[in-house]
């Protein structure tokens, strides 16, 4: 198992009810696996919300394998300004 941290913002934080989750996941797990877990957990509350993924504070394209200690954020549409 590896330990990762999920940072939650805006609609994700609202749906999850927390701003940070630390969890153990299987070696070889990917950002897609984690996103599916989150989507399932919130039971429809993130439907129609597009999420981008950041790993260790950098946007990533597609699904990537996670490593021990990674920080992952599923980023809903941003709203600065």
């Amino acid at each position, binding site marked *: 198992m590896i330990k990762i941290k999920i940072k939650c913002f805006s609609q994700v934080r609202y749906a999850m009810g927390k701003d940070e989750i630390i969890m153990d996941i299987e070696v070889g797990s990917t950002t897609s696996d984690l996103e599916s877990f989150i989507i399932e957990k919130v039971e429809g509350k993130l439907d129609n919300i597009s999420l981008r993924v*950041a790993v260790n*504070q950098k946007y990533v394209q597609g699904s990537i394998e996670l490593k021990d200690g990674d920080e992952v954020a599923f*980023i*809903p*549409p941003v*709203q*600065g300004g």
Partner: protein
Amino acid sequence: MIIVKIIKGPLTPFPSNDDRNQDGAELTFNGRVRDTEHGRDLDALEYEQYEGMAKAELTKLASEMCQKFPISDLFCKHRMGRVEIGETSLHVSIWSKHRKEAIEAMDNFIKELKIRVPIWKWAILTDGTKVPSACVHD
């Protein structure tokens, strides 16, 4: 030169400057909080950031604008936390030789900011409830 600041609390604008001999344009933008959002009355907005990544993305974006457009300086301050109706949440100041490049750089900078810088708004409604803002920008 680039200055990017993400701050909590009241925002002090970047000072003007009468001593620049090469820059004919000083363009300033202040984004302010409106009192309604999609028909809902607001008491305030509360800004949230992905700490670390927000400043890094904003700095990267400012740097890209300075490379893409012939501007001299781009200064930006973005507030976090509660911002009252009418107050400035975003302040940008761009200096350039001529106005055209400053206007284009400003438009591009703000458009990109609203696409990629991980900052969000929470709507504080007049009944006291706090919900993610429904605001999506063009």
